[in-house]
């Protein structure tokens, strides 16, 4: 039975943004200039907005929900992000797991059905917490026993470590990307966010087909991190 109350399932996107001190200056200014464009591009098109939910999580020593998961057509302004502190990947992953779980239940309560969430992880550095700590937080986030485990796309520039990013994206091909050596954040960040808009718009079209697909952003100045095949 189909009735007026049945809606399309929504596709949740979380932008998980490194807001450590190294992002201060140009990269952060660029982020703060681009996020309102993303809000407008997605939110102002009802055909895209109605199937996308978008949230921003930032992390330094701790992680914060900067923009709670929202229907962007109902968001009037995206809060600005301030950079400070170190780069705790563990804080980011733990926070994401909790946020996704909470958001999922809140959405269900309102009658929304979900596609598997996507996390767009962006970092310009290496984790400052110890390896064991961030890796165990990561494995809790990606635990396949947890029904809501997200697909993670990761993007690095500056001092980001390709091997670490590949790990964040669970060593899946075409999920981790790194900027060319010496690429300026002032070019990389806008490209990345423009790519993210395109990715959200294309993914929203696939939602309507009933088989949502995460379409990775195209970022010309970034290349996929090769992932070796295991034997």
């Amino acid at each position, binding site marked *: 039975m*189909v*009735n*007026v109350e049945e809606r399309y399932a929504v596709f949740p996107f979380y932008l998980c943004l490194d807001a450590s001190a190294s992002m201060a200056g140009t990269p952060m200014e660029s982020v703060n200039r681009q996020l309102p464009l993303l809000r407008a591009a997605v939110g102002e098109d009802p055909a895209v907005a109605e199937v996308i939910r978008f949230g921003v999580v930032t992390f330094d020593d701790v992680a914060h929900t900067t923009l709670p998961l929202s229907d962007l057509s109902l968001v009037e302004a995206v809060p600005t992000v301030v950079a400070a502190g170190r780069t705790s990947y563990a804080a980011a992953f733990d926070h994401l797991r909790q946020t996704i779980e909470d958001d999922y239940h809140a959405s269900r309560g309102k009658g929304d059905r979900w596609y598997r969430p996507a996390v767009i992880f962006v970092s310009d550095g290496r984790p400052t917490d110890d390896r064991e700590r961030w890796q165990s937080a990561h494995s809790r986030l990606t635990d396949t026993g947890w029904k809501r485990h997200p697909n993670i796309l990761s993007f690095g520039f500056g001092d980001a470590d390709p091997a670490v990013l590949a790990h964040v994206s669970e060593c899946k091909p075409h999920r981790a990307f790194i900027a060319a050596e010496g690429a300026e954040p002032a070019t990389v960040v806008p490209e990345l966010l423009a790519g993210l808009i395109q990715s959200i718009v294309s993914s929203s079209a696939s939602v309507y087909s*009933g088989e949502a697909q995460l379409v990775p952003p195209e970022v010309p100045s970034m290349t996929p991190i090769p992932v070796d095949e295991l034997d």
Partner: protein
Amino acid sequence: MSALDSVPTAVSRPELRAGEMLAEGGEGRVYELVGRPGTLYKAYRRPAQLAPLEALIAWEARLAEAQPELAARVRAATAWPQAVVTQPGAAGGTAAGLLLPRAPRRFAVRHRDGTSRLATLSYLTADPGQRAAAYGLALPAPVSADRIGIVYALARVLEAFQRAAPPVGHGDLSTRNILWSLERGPEVFLLDCDSCERYSPDGEALDSGHRRRAMTPNWDDPATPAGANPTLASDRYSLGLIFLRVVGAAHFPLQRRQRDSELLSIDFAIPPAARRTRSLLDGAVVWSVCARSLSTRDPARRPAAAEWVSALEEVLDGLGAMSAARAVWAAQGGGTPAPSPTRSAEQAADVRVRPVAMSGAGRRWERVRPPGPGLPALPQSTRPAPPAAAPTRTAAPAPLPAPPSIVELARTGLGRGGELWLGAHRATLASLSRAGRRRRATRQVIGCLVLDFALLAVIFYMCAMVAGVLLGI
């Protein structure tokens, strides 16, 4: 005068002065033309085949001669290609682009932030409350004459497509390609008509069987296999889906279930105001036309747009809104009433659509039953008689039942008032508890205060009246 007299059907690219780029689509870029405000230039990414485009331009010119009344609808309500643009020195038989009429300004909406955007159907295909909150637009209520009028306007354009010889199919009747306006009464304006296709009477594509014509994902025809082109019958499916989505103001995600061969039972919510409208009751023609349009069993038997025109006219008439139909005729170069809809003996085996009413408190769905004795009077038909050639309506006049009792009216009135009051206060509380919406919340608080004050005043006045009588003042 036909389009051919005023505009040459082929223009050389160097003769054009392209202005600002308006939009970029999958197939090309759309530019303004310097000095020609009503015309746009669509430049293809890759040179297109010339012959099918010329055939479309000639199709409309011929229609203008053979059936001017149908051609007027096409001209008023579509961006039908006016001329091909060729590039000197390019390979023979190719077109660099097209000249198209620009959608008139009234086919736009203004968002709260002041920006103006094309009024695509997506503003109408979801809960108007959500769209109002998001963009600050006042949109018509579900199942209102405005919404039905918009679908009616579309049905009349498709009727022209289908009754022409040869018939044409649009093939991608999706949210982005259909614009609407209510400024002069309900109107539509179809874009992307250069991907229309001419068909032989038995449904064979005449021009571009080999050209890929994709449908938009949630607006596609589930009877066509993935990767296949839409057919002449696909527009008929689209019209049924657009009726559900625009008039019902909801999503109705059907296609995947239909591709999985599920049998569909669609419950269509009728708001209290329209619940007694005979032409919307369970068993009314419009529901069977809708179900047959959505059927995937035998696409060729889906009802033609002309059946929709009759059925929707009857619905408008039932709502006492023939003025909407007349506005559509005026906007589309004239019109007369369609023949009364006839009930087809056919039924869709795979789809059922029925009207339901949501009963207030319990949120329980009930069927909207045909009227029994004791229901209020139906509005008198204000529909002019169809022209002599058309069969006239033969149905016996409806018996005039007794009006509802005062008590019943007062009860429903109070109930609705209470719901509205509660709703307004809830919405205000919700806005207050949300950061970043302070201006809106303030406005709502003021609204609620005014409302409460007015209510108090009324209650006080009524108490005073009663007390006055009791005290003998």
